[in-house]
Structures are given as structure tokens and as C-alpha cells.
């Protein structure tokens, strides 16, 4: 962890969706800090609020979703205090995002080159066209695509190449902070691995921080230094990724996830699911939202929501943990 001032500070963030039956809280009282040049993983199942949180950070929430409480600061600036012009400049130059679907994040009727140049010229009014073309070629080199491919349309590229183009556009203006929302989910393992290797390499050179959103535990454990685990809109645990192995004390949900994935190298090959299904956000269980599925549930879990406490490797919201130790 770096001692520099953080690139991202989220304090008590809550996001709700307006529905005919009242507000549904998708993100609930979340705190998270990301430091410069750090990769933080954000793990959760579908409906856990991880993507909603990512969109809230970018101030891209649409339609019925809105921030009900809390602040988000990037590089010390409150994202929600900016006016439209400031935000427009801030986005992509200071923070950018790699979206999940490589198939639909690019414009199908514009060449790759036109899309990269479009981004550059919008933010750099003084840049000439030839400078932009040059930068586009440079970016292609960084993500290792033949620069002749600049003239291609998205449908002419493979899924892996499209995802590389999206990464190239995200880093085009040297942002300090990049959110990657499941950037490799739709890709084959070999392609996924080579893109992750590239992300790591580019990150070392360009020195930005990454919030890496994913549902793949083993992948995030390899890539990130710290991992935040989300359940029902809350970060139930924040931990050092090195601690993510069986036997370490963790939040029961984290432990459940660790047991639920078959491991490639482990000797024993038993896996165990977590009983039940992820909760419906409209009617969350009382107390700790995980308690109906928790193997180590206690009576207070059903009534009182656990507070965030420090653990050996970070923090957790669980009654099993007392300040600093496991109860």
C-alpha cells in the first residue's frame, strides 16, 4: 500500500434504484480507498452491486439509479460536485473505464482509428489530426495490435482484439485511475491471460491505479493486491489478496466462495457450494444479509447488522470478528 494520497476515496456510499414499490438499495454504505498504482479487485455475484458501484464512481448512473448518500472523491475532487463541463473534462483524462462487453462498447460503423482519434481530439482541442493518428498508432503498439488494424471496423476484429482496442481507448489520455468492469469475461482463457498480462505491463509503464471488477475469484486473487468482496450491496470484507487461501480466517461468505471454486492445483478436489441463493435486494434479510446462508450464524446475526472491524488482513463486517481478532 502506498502512502501517497489516494486516487479514489469512497465514503459511506449508498446507491438506490427507484421502483414502483419504493427504493431498492443496490449499494449500501460502502467505504473503499484505492491508492496510486494499486490494483484493487472488486468481487461479487450478480446483483451484489459491484457494477452499480463502478457506474456510480464514473457518475454514469442512468435512469432510476441515484446516489442517496456518501461521497466519491477522485484525486481529491468530489465527482458529484463537478458541473457538466468539469466532469466532461475530468472523465477519461483522469479516470476512465473499460466496459464489460467487448462486442457492444465500440461503435460498429466507425473504424478503430476514427474512434481513437475522436476521443483524443475531443479532449485535446489543440492536437492536430496527424498527431492524433500518431498517438493512435502508438496505442496500438502498446496493446500489441498491428497498426494496419486501425482501418478495421469492430466486426472485423476478434473478441480479444476488440477488448484490446477498448483498453487502448481507455488509456489514450493517460488517466490516473481506470475501472475495469469484467474486461475478460467473454474471452477464452488463453486470450484472457494474455490480456491480463498486458494490463499489468501497461499499468507498470503508465502507472495508473485499477479497480478491477470481476466475479472470478482465482483471477482477481492473482491480479490484485487487495480484494473487496461484495454481498447484497455491502463490502463484507476487504482483504490482502495473498490471504485468499483456505485456512485463513475470513468472512464466512469469503470462505464459502473459496470452497466453492474447484482449484487447479490443490490436492483435494472437493468443492462445496454456499446453500441458498443470493438475496433479493427488495426484501433483504434482517441483521447481516448473509445470515440465512451462513454456516456459522449466531443469534445476534439475525437481529443486528455487524459493524466494520479491522482484521488481520484488512476489514470485515461480521460478528465473528472482534476488533483485530477473530472471535
Amino acid at each position: 500500500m502506498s502512502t501517497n494520497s489516494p486516487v479514489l476515496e469512497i465514503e459511506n456510499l449508498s446507491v438506490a434504484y427507484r421502483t414502483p414499490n419504493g427504493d431498492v438499495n443496490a449499494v449500501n454504505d460502502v467505504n473503499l480507498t484505492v491508492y496510486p498504482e494499486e490494483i484493487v479487485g472488486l468481487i461479487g455475484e450478480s446483483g451484489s452491486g459491484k457494477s452499480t458501484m463502478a457506474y456510480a464512481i464514473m457518475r454514469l448512473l442512468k435512469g432510476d439509479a441515484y446516489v442517496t448518500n456518501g461521497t466519491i472523491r477522485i484525486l481529491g475532487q468530489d465527482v458529484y460536485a463537478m458541473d457538466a463541463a468539469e466532469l466532461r473534462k475530468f472523465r477519461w483524462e483522469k479516470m476512465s473505464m473499460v466496459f464489460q462487453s467487448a462486442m457492444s462498447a465500440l461503435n460498429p460503423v466507425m473504424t478503430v482509428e476514427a474512434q481513437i482519434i475522436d476521443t483524443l481530439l475531443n479532449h485535446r482541442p489543440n492536437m492536430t489530426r496527424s498527431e492524433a493518428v500518431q498517438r493512435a498508432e502508438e496505442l496500438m503498439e502498446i496493446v500489441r495490435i498491428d497498426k494496419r488494424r486501425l482501418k478495421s471496423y469492430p466486426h472485423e476484429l476478434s473478441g480479444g482484439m476488440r477488448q484490446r482496442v477498448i483498453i487502448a481507448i481507455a488509456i489514450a489520455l493517460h488517466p490516473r485511475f481506470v475501472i475495469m468492469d469484467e474486461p475478460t469475461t467473454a474471452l477464452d482463457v488463453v486470450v484472457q491471460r494474455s490480456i491480463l498480462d498486458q494490463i499489468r505491463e501497461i499499468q507498470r509503464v503508465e502507472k495508473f491505479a485499477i479497480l478491477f471488477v470481476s466475479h472470478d475469484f482465482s483471477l482477481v486473487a492473482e491480479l490484485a493486491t487487495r480484494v473487496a468482496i461484495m454481498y447484497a450491496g455491502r463490502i463484507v470484507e476487504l482483504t490482502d489478496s495473498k490471504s485468499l487461501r483456505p485456512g485463513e480466517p475470513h468472512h464466512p461468505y469469503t470462505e464459502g466462495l473459496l470452497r466453492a471454486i474447484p482449484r487447479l492445483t490443490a490436492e483435494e478436489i472437493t468443492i462445496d457450494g454456499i446453500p441458498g441463493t443470493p438475496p433479493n435486494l427488495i426484501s433483504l434479510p434482517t441483521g447481516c444479509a448473509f445470515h440465512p446462508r451462513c454456516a456459522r450464524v449466531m443469534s445476534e446475526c439475525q437481529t443486528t447488522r455487524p459493524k466494520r472491524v479491522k482484521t488481520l488482513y484488512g476489514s470485515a463486517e461480521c460478528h465473528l470478528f472482534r476488533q483485530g481478532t477473530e472471535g
Partner: protein
Amino acid sequence: MQSSSKVSQLNQTDNKLVEVENLVVRFPILDNGHRAYIRPVDEVSFTIDSGEVLALVGESGSGKSTIAKALLRIVEPQSGTIRVQGNDVTHWRGGRLTTYRKNVQMVFQDPFGSLNPVRTVEHHIAYPLQKHRHLHGRALRDMVGSLLERVGLTPVEETRVKYPHELSGGQRQRVAIARALAVNPKFLVADEPISMLDVSIRAGILKLLNELRSEFNLGYLYITHDLASARYFGHRIMVLYGGKVMETAPSHELIRNPSHPYTRLLLAATPGSGLDGPLPETSNQAPSLIEGRTGCPFAERCPLVVDACRKEDPPVVRLSEGHEVACHVV
């Protein structure tokens, strides 16, 4: 794989559940305005015993799902034979095909797309029971109930009347499994049955499939792109690339002792492999599936490539009991 087909000929009396020999599927394409063919499945042979799980691993476009479709007789094989319980079903039609489909069922990847949104759970499971087992009235109702209970969709009376949108992904996949079981199949093709489900419920579905396997002595073709789940669920793993079988071995043997350069690449790329450093590949070009291509489809990416790889089909080398690899340099 030639040698495995020889082995299966010798063991004919063993009555393997499924025997596939030199299966070829080809699709027409337009190449610069001329008709050409691609072979997404090219001379593939394998066997599956009753009660056995064969895990089929490969990237998208490697031919996994096409093999499944050929087995279910949804696509017509160009050549080769498919024998199930000793019967050559490769070209069965009409009534015999209907009977065949009673014995072979499929669980699809997408539990959101494979159920009819305007039909209840009850309807999904009752339909095959009426059609294939001619049940009705009380017997039908009871059978639906016991199937729902068997796949863990309780309370049964509540689940019966639900529509797919009222169920979670895992529950939907359980409906799909109950529906497949309704006709008492001998053999089940599971095409990435867990890849669209949440991590915490994947293990539950695999466990259910495993229990059903031993209870009904079912044979499975388990299709996946994930070596870790293939090792967990499969007795044997078959690695496919560009429509050809690269390597087949008992699961633990394949993970511990991968011999084909492609298997090694796949293993190195899987999260949790512990490998650091560059991937063992020389390019990331997709394999050519065009008919008439020569040599090994992996040659263009292979770090160990020799001249022969581009000209001749690699021989199938038998490394140990059940471990076979198609490679010139191993």
C-alpha cells in the same frame, strides 16, 4: 484419434455406452464467392462408459458444441459413426430417432434462454413425460413432483406454478436438469452447465449432476472451457483444438502431466495455475478450419513446432494407460 478407435474395436464386447469414431462435421462457407467447407469437427473419436464423465475442454470455435450437436443428431455428420449402446445411430431417422432422443438428453449453457418464458415449471417437465412416457393425470402430476424434489426444487407445490422469470439462474438450471431426466436418459450432454451461474451456486449444480450420475448410472459428456472444473467433475479430459483431439487422459494425469503443447498453454493460462512469465505460445492466431488444411492445427502457435507439423497429421502417441496425445514432438 486412430489408436483409440482400434482399442474400441477390440473391446466391442464391453458395450461402451457411447462410441464415436472418426466423426467429421462440415459446414459450407463462402470463400471469395466460391463455395468451400470448414470442418469444425475433424476425425474425432472417443468413448464414454455408463456412469462415466468425459470432460471436453477447448476454446470457443474448437468444435465442442458441434460435437454435442452431432451426438444429439441436431447436425448431420459428414462421415464417421456414432454408436450408442451398440447401435449405430449415425443416420437414424423418424421413429427410431425419436426413440434415440429419449436416451440422450442435453442441458444447455443458458438457463435464461433454454426455458420458455410463458410456460410454468410444471409444463416444462410434464411435456416430455406426456410425449415420451405417455403419462397423464395423477401419475403425471406425481412424476413431476418427484422430479422437482429430486433436483432440489422444494417446496414442490410452490415451484410447480412458477414461471422461469421467478426463478434464479441456479433454479432454472435445476428445471433444465429435471426436464432432461424426465425421459430416463442413459446419456446426458451438459454444455457449460455452470458457466453462467453465480460462483456460490455452481458447486451445488455440479454436485447434483454427480449424484444423478451415480444414482442412474448416467454417462456424461461435460463440455467446458475451464480446466479446473473439468478436473473436478470429469473422470477423463479430452482437449480439443481446431476441431481435432490434442490429448486425452484421466483428469488428474492430464493436469499433473500435460504433454501436448496446447494443453500446456491452456493450463498455464488458467487462473490458479501458479505460472508466472510469458505464455508458451508464438502467436495468437486462430486455427484454420478450412477443409483440406494439412498438419496440426496448433502448429502456427506452437513453440515446439517442426517442419512435419505443417505437412503431416500428427501420430497419436500412447504415453500410459488412457493417456494419448496427438503430436509430432512428444
